[in-house]
C-alpha cells in the first residue's frame, strides 16, 4: 500500500469523516457518546440518521488501520488458528471466502471477519438463548459505511474495498489488493487480541442472561401467595462489601 494511498486515505477520507461527524454532532445529545454507541444508535435499526455514515466510517477506518502492520501476513496462531480450522476448515478456505466476499461486493464497502456470538442475523438484536453453534467466526461483507457492529457481531478484521483504498496502487484489480493484504499486511496479533475480547464479552453477556433466565424461572415456580425474596445483594450493599474488602 503506497505512501500516497495511505496519505490520501487517512488524511483526506478518514479525516473528512471525523470533521463532518464533529460538525454534525456538536452540541447534540450524541456528542458525549462513545463512538461505538454512536454507530449503533445512529444506525437506528436500518433507517440511519444523517451522521451514521460519518460515525461508522470513522469507526471502520480506525479499525482498519489497526489490523495492518509493516511485515504482516504469515499465519495466525493459538486459539485464533484453531477456530479458523474449526469454522472454515483451513486458512486457505478463509482466504477464499474473504476474496469471494470482496469480489462480490458491488460498489463500495467493507469485508469483515467477525465473531458471531449468537444466531439472530438482523437488526440491533440481542439473542436471548445463545447456543454452542452460534459462537463462531464468519466472513461478511457490508455496503458503503455499514459494519457488522449493527448486527451485534464482534468485528475482528476489516478490509476496506472502497476504490479509494486500492485504485492508485491496483487500479481495478480488487482481487490482487485483497491477496496482498492477506499475505503482507494483515496483523494476526491484533485479530487474535480482538477475538479474546470478543469471547470475554460474549461469555459475560451470556452469564448475565442466564442469571436473568434463572431468576424468571424461579419466580414462575414459586407457589402463588409466596413471595420470592430477592436475596441478591442490592447495588448499595455490593458497594459496601467492596469497600470492606
Amino acid at each position, binding site marked *: 500500500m503506497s505512501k500516497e494511498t495511505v496519505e490520501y486515505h487517512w488524511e483526506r477520507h478518514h479525516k473528512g469523516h471525523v470533521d463532518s461527524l464533529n460538525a454534525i454532532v456538536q452540541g447534540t445529545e450524541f456528542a458525549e457518546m462513545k463512538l461505538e454507541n454512536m454507530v449503533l444508535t445512529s444506525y437506528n435499526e436500518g433507517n440511519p440518521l444523517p451522521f451514521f455514515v460519518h460515525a461508522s466510517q470513522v469507526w471502520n477506518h480506525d479499525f482498519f488501520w489497526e489490523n495492518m502492520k509493516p511485515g504482516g501476513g504469515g499465519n495466525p496462531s493459538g486459539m485464533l488458528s484453531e477456530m479458523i480450522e474449526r469454522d472454515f476448515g483451513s486458512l486457505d478456505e478463509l482466504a477464499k471466502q474473504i476474496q469471494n466476499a470482496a469480489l462480490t461486493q*458491488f460498489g*463500495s464497502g467493507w469485508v469483515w471477519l467477525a465473531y458471531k456470538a449468537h444466531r439472530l442475523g438482523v437488526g440491533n438484536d440481542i439473542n436471548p438463548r445463545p447456543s454452542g453453534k452460534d459462537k463462531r467466526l464468519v466472513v461478511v461483507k457490508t455496503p458503503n459505511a455499514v459494519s457488522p457492529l449493527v448486527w451485534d457481531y464482534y468485528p475482528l478484521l476489516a478490509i476496506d474495498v472502497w476504490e479509494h483504498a486500492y485504485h492508485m496502487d491496483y487500479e481495478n484489480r480488487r482481487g490482487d489488493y485483497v491477496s496482498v493484504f492477506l499475505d503482507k499486511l494483515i496483523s494476526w496479533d491484533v485479530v487474535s487480541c480482538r477475538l479474546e475480547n470478543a469471547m470475554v464479552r460474549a461469555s459475560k453477556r451470556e452469564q448475565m442472561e442466564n442469571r436473568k433466565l434463572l431468576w424468571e424461572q424461579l419466580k414462575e415456580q414459586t407457589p402463588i401467595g409466596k413471595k420470592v425474596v430477592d436475596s441478591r445483594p442490592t447495588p448499595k450493599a455490593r458497594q459496601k462489601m467492596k469497600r470492606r474488602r
Partner: protein
Amino acid sequence: RAYRVTAYYGLTTPPYELDALEPYMSKRTVEIHWGKHHNEHVEKLNRHLKTSAFYGHTLEEMVKATYNNGSPLVEFNDASSVWSHDFFWESMQPKGGSMPTGGVLDQIEKDFGSFTNFKDEFTFASLSLFGPGWVWLYLKRNEKKLAVAPTQNAISPLVWGDIPIIGLDMWEHAYYLDYKDDRSAYVNNFLDHLVSWHSVMVRMMRAEAFVNLGEPKIPVA
C-alpha cells in the same frame, strides 16, 4: 444441419482519442476507466449471457427487465454499468462545456429557472452522493420535464422508465487519479469543459419522439 449463431457485446470505443479530454480527464484515467473497468463489465455481462435468459435482449431492454422492480437479477449490475458507461463516454467531448443553445437551453431554463440553477442542482446532487454512483440529467416521461437526480451503484433513470440525457460517473475510479477526493473540482470541470451539449441536443431530439415537450397539438375542428 443448422448452425447456431451466437453474438455477444463488444466494448464500444469512446468517440474521441483517449487523451482528447486532457487536462480535465487524463489519458491514464480514460485508459483504465474504459480499458479496464468498463471492459470488465462487458466481459462479465457476456459471461452471464452464456447461460442467461436475457440473451438476445437489447441492452436497454435488459437493464429495465433485470432491474426487476428493485430486486435486481444477477445480470443487472453489469448490464446497467455497460449501458451507463457507453452513455457516459458519449456525454463528453473534447472542448465541451460552456453553454447549450436553442431549444435545449430553453427547456433547461423552463424546468430549472435558469442555466445557473441547473448547474447548482447538478453539482449539489453529485456531492450529496455517498458511495459510488451516477448523476443524471434526465427527462421525466410523465411530468414532461427535465430533472437532476443521483443514483447509487449501477442504477440509471432507465429503470424508472425515464429518458437519460447526461450521465456523470461518480464512482471513485472515474476521478480518483486526477482529482483524489476533490469531487467538486471534478464535477465543475465536467460541466465547464467536458459535457457535450451536442450529444444533449441529439438526445433531446430523440426523446421528443416519445415525449411531447410543447403545448399539446390538438387540431382545431
